[in-house]
């Protein structure tokens, strides 16, 4: 018990140290940028405007950035959720039936590495709206890693857990939701993690051609007018959003996978 409390405290302390370290690195980089731009003007002032330009620009267009954020989330969240759900569901269904898996695996292996960005022109041609084609692209970017990791998670399930479940006469939904899904969760979360990062990339890429608003659209739009203060401000804003989303993801993961680090 005491040992556990000690470990928890240590983990907390480690996290705090990491946060302080990361902030320090960020501060040094910011200071370096300030030195290279505002103070010494070593970098080209048009392509690399100083912080004195970027920050006021961000403040001025905060309404536009917020609107872009909401537009982006309206595209990202449903696509992400659908990708995760479909990936996990297909992964469980196929993973639990070895014969089906044997038949489908070559197909998965062939389709999985196709970069979703390659499908963008085709998706736009086939699908009726910009929103839908972007959503499908993001969906695919999330679906494949989650599907593959779920399949892997089902394979990696400890045989003794399955024995245990069989002895308890667990079948059907109980078996899936009480044993197989939680047992495969560590791998599933690894897949969701890479899917999540992929989804940010795809989101901004998709928004850069044909969107009416969004964080990627904002950056692309002002780049066309060579307003690099706004471009950098938009990128900065986007990275803050990504950091926040990743933090939420980490929190959820720590909570769901509570049991793995103290087994």
């Amino acid at each position, binding site marked *: 018990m005491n040992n556990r409390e000690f470990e928890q405290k240590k983990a907390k302390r480690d996290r705090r140290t990491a946060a302080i370290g990361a902030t320090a690195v960020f501060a040094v980089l910011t200071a370096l940028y300030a030195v290279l731009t505002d103070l010494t003007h070593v970098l080209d002032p048009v392509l690399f405007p100083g912080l004195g330009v970027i920050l006021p620009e961000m403040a001025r267009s905060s309404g536009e950035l917020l609107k872009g954020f909401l537009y982006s989330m309206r595209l990202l969240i449903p696509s992400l959720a659908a990708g995760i759900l479909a990936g996990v569901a297909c992964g469980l269904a196929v993973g639990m039936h070895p014969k089906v898996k044997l038949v489908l695996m070559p197909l998965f292996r062939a389709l999985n590495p196709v970069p979703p960005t390659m499908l963008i022109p085709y998706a736009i041609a086939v699908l009726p709206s910009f929103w839908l084609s972007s959503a499908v692209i993001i969906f695919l970017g999330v679906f494949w890693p989650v599907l593959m990791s779920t399949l892997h998670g089902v394979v990696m399930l400890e045989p003794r857990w399955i*024995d*245990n479940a*069989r*002895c*308890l006469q667990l079948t059907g939904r109980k078996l899936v939701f009480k044993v197989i899904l*939680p*047992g495969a969760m560590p791998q599933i979360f690894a897949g969701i993690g890479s899917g999540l990062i992929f989804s940010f990339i795809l989101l901004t890429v998709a928004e850069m051609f044909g969107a009416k608003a969004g964080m990627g659209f904002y950056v692309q739009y002002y780049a066309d007018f060579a307003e690099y203060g706004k471009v950098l401000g938009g990128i900065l804003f986007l990275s803050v959003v990504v950091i926040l989303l990743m933090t939420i993801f980490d929190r959820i993961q720590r909570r769901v996978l509570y*049991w*793995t680090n103290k087994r």
Partner: protein
Amino acid sequence: MIECRNLTVAFQNKTILDRINLGVADGAFLCLLGQSGCGKSTLLRTFAGLLKPTSGEVFVDGKAVDGPEKACSVVFQDYSLFPWMTTGKNLMLALTASFPQKSKAEIRNLAESYLEMVGLGGVFNQYPAALSGGMRQRAAIARAIATPSKVLLMDEPFGALDPVNRAMLQDLVRELHRDSHGARTVVFVTHDVDEALYLGTEIAVLGSSPGRVIALEKNPVSRQLPREKLFENESVISLQRKIMDIYRSDMNEKLNLRESFHSGNGI
């Protein structure tokens, strides 16, 4: 209660169990003794329906075993509880599988009372990882006896425990079996002769490579003596000696096999 006829298990041409014939009477406590790798766990797995024998048959409660049955509950060495659920939820999962008609509140109460019965009153909301090995095995036993199974199969359940915990859990299992008044048959796998003498009403010794029953003994005092008196009893001492001798000769046989193999190679 359990009967196996000409039971043979082989993996890739290697015979693990060779034509085992063994019967376990209703209410008996059979200890399966044998050195590691002799196939005693494999035999238990065929009883549990987790493993299909290559040939031969197993009957539990008069029915041929074909997959895990409700009649059996199993306690494994250290993985009977799912690590992602609290101890209480682990019990509740087993209970809902056995009593689908009971309400959630009833199931919860049952789980709590069985945990209390094995001396784990306060751990309902704790994850298995937060418990000690002994507490986890207690919880696993609580789970096994909470279901209305007639047969309790235990696969070296105390193998990973310290001596104090082991003794306490042996007492617990002995008590639980006694209190069931013959309603529960136990098959207990161990490699510890003293443990088998303390717990078993019957003791079967499995020889190795391939696994077969080389001795089946009735415990002369079975359960009448407390732990401290057990090894003062003449008949227990002579049985202990006999089993040890059988054990030793089996081990020697295995070693001799190796020796002849080596000498055959000119070493």
